């Protein structure tokens, strides 16, 4: 089942971007978009443009740093790198996500057990 692109919550997108940069190292916007689509098993069809406002916010917050460079296709591209602050933010976000996910999971599980 493909997830509708509007369902991707802003917070989730930020988390996914940070995780992508953490795993793959410096990446350009297209690479990040591809990675997110691949990781979701192509279930998540991004409007790739929506990535950029999120990246702006991450940059302004100082979680990522942007540098122009040359991509593997030999094209000019803007590469985003996770900063130490970004890495800290990622672990915090991830912990929070796990907690929330755990709660939701327990909630759903409990609901199933008590029909």
């Amino acid at each position, binding site marked *: 089942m493909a997830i509708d692109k509007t369902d991707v919550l802003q917070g989730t997108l930020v988390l996914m971007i940070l995780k992508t940069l953490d795993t793959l190292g410096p990446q*350009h*916007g*297209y*690479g990040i*978009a*591809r990675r997110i689509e691949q990781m979701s098993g192509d279930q998540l069809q991004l*409007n*790739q*443009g*929506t990535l*950029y*406002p999120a990246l*702006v*916010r991450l*940059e*302004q*917050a*100082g979680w990522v740093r942007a540098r122009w460079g040359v*991509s593997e*296709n030999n*094209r*000019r*591209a*803007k590469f985003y790198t996770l900063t130490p602050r970004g890495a800290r933010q990622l672990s915090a976000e991830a912990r929070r996500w796990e907690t929330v996910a755990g709660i939701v999971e327990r909630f759903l599980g409990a609901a199933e057990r008590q029909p």
Partner: protein
Amino acid sequence: MNRLRILFARILEALRPRRVEDDLADEVQSHLDHLTDELVRRGMSRDDARAAARRQFGGVDQTFEAVRDRRGFPRLDATVRDVRYAARLLMKSRAFTITAVLTLALGIGVNTAIFSFVNAVILQPLPYPGADRLISLWEGRVGAPPAQDTSRGTSIAHDMPPARSAVAPANLVDYRTLSSYFTGLAGVATVGHNLTGAGTPERLLGEEVTSNYFSVLGVAPALGRTFDASEDQPGAAPVAIISAGLWQARFGMDDRILGRTITLDNTPYEIVGVMPAGFTSAMQFTNSDPVAFWTPAAYPPDLLANHGDHEINVVGRLASGVSLASAQSALTIVSEDLAKRFPRSNSTCRAFLTPLRDDIVSKVRSSFVILITTVSAILLIACVNVANLLLVRAVARRREMAVRVALGAGRSRVMTELITESLVLAAFACAVGVGFAEITRRLLVAAAPATIPRLAGVSLDWRVLAFAALVSLVTGLGFGLLPAWQAGRARPVDALRSSERVVAGTWVMRWRNALMVVEIALSTILLTGAGLMLKSLVLLNGVDLGFRPDQVLTANVNLPETRYRTADDRLQFFDAIAARLSSQPGVESVAFANRFPLRGGWETGVSVDGVVLPGDGSIDVACQAVSPQYFQTLGIPLVRGRLLTPADVKATEPVAVVSDEFSRKVLAGGDPIGRRIRRAPTAPWITIVGVVHDVRRDGRESVMMPQVFLAAAQTQLYPVRIADLAVRTSAEPKALAGAIRAAVLDVDPNQPITAVRTLDEILTARAAERRFETLLFFLFAVLALVLAVVGIFGVVSYAVSQRTPEIGIRMALGADGTRILRWLIGRTAVVVVIGAAAGVAASLLLSKFVAALLFQVQPRDETVYALSAGLLAMVALLTTAIAARAATKVDPTTALRGD
């Protein structure tokens, strides 16, 4: 923390918008290229891939917008764009902009200038710590029985405000028991002393104060100390505190001043303190002469026993937490108690409190309220004019607006733009207006009479500038809203469908006519006010003084009682001076008296032998003891009998000369010569020997009093002292000041002279306040009239240009130029008449507020009303005629061909 970081990042981005924008475009392009590459690799043709990449990316423009919203401050950017756009547009239509900016700047300028006065004179706190707790305590007569003044046929109404008087030191003792309400109540009285010793003798103004005066004001001396509680007791050693001015002028700011003495009226005072340079005494704000010294006020026992002897001013400081109202009610209880204990002196006497600042500015407050109203009216006229100009512009730009609305620009966007334009206009006007305000302020400060308190502080400080900005903002919104609203209402269909003239809505015309009515009405009000003031001034200048004030130099020579004990001593002194001066070249005559006209005087009740006067049997007259040369020096003509002569001396029968008014008022026109008068049953009879022309002793605004002239050589009979000198000259009178000084020093080297002024100078100074007010009103009325003319001209010219086709049709149908002109003028005339009528009606309603400023003019003076309404109507119609002449030049063929 995070927010702060984001804000900081945004500020950095806002500083280089171009770079951020380019960067984004490159990045998005790079993304699309990568995506295209990928799709090509998967087997698409490059063109298909490019299209697919765009689809997959989602809206490129939306992304741009979304990112722009995140970067920098997009809303601010839009505003900056609007402002730039508005400024560019305004720069393009230069004639419009200059007219509008100048019009508004005038309005903002005069308002700002007047506000700078209000700010400094009325709003600023007094220069004392905790000045809001300082109060003035005064005594007044309440519920006094109607005065038996049958001569004028008036009686004092019971609801009149209490007649203010000074405070009796005896009562102050009781008020001071309210120590839980006041941290202190201090008495202060102005005194004049002759300073002698090193240098030229000088008459100095000083104040006798209770020892707590300085602590009540909360001001410490710059050097030394203030008075202690033992020093304001009778018999205490004489001490004085001097002003920084005197310290500098007389002692060269010598640090070892403390302990030295100054001699005031032959008494040595030990200097115990020097006040700081910026110190202004509480009673000094309206006084142009500086207070040079303070001495302790030791009220003698007989003064403290007399509860009816009102002599001093009282300032006090409310204790913290005490309200004015509660202090007032406590004070009322004390003064009612005094009334019971001393019914003879205090039955109608009560004590009142006023905040000290209000007390100081109360005199000018009402004038200022009128001034503010006036300048507000001018600003309103300016706004109306500019609103009119903007309406014209809005109509001209209607198609542009309609096209933009049709292309999808939101109405609110268009309206925002128009408001922005108005505000930019207002901002220009504010800048120019502040310049105007500074010029106006300088002119006003220079022209203002010294009787306005705290003039020195009038400046364009931040409060005034904030006021100017606020006024400009309100103004900008005021004149901008109407055209913007109108633009918002415009239906694009109408504007696009037809040529301009057909859509020239009656709606716009109605508004313009309404605005014109307002403008004309406001101008009529100001013109009427100015007319009333002007007529007052004319009437005032026409009042006959009864003496000739030109070419007379007067001076005061206050002989101290310690050296000139008897009336004879003083007479000898003045005779000697007169002899010395008479021989000077250019001197026509020299006279002396207790006081000369316009310089104070002595009023007393007299009874007349064989005449039964109403009331207590006496009538109030103005008395003066004068030398024989007095009448010649002042140019008072003899009507009957004889003048006083050198033969009327101490040994001969006491004689007097009276004015005509005396015969009229006391003897119902009968001949007073040979009749006898006296001040009191115990005083000697004085025989009237002559009648002179009427004299308005206290100037043109004073009521006519019966005058009694007594012989200076017989002053031992009267409670006055000879102290004034007057010289009539054939040359410039001021040039004789030196000769008078020399003559006085020649007779007594320790004797200063003061108040050396020509009578003309005094008269000018007397009328200064009225002249200043009249000048202001006159200028404002002219300004209003000019603005109204500009406005009317604009409206009519526009109406003509708009009606060109209609005029063309009329002309084609046979109407000639004159008829067209008459038709156009007729249309405006209705508006003018309505406006003028509204103005007259409003003036009638407002007239009671200017009544206080008028002299012998009814606030509803028909002539002035008719003249100002007539003048305005005439000017308005003349303007209309000139503006409408363009219509007669319309060529029917061109007009009908249209655009």
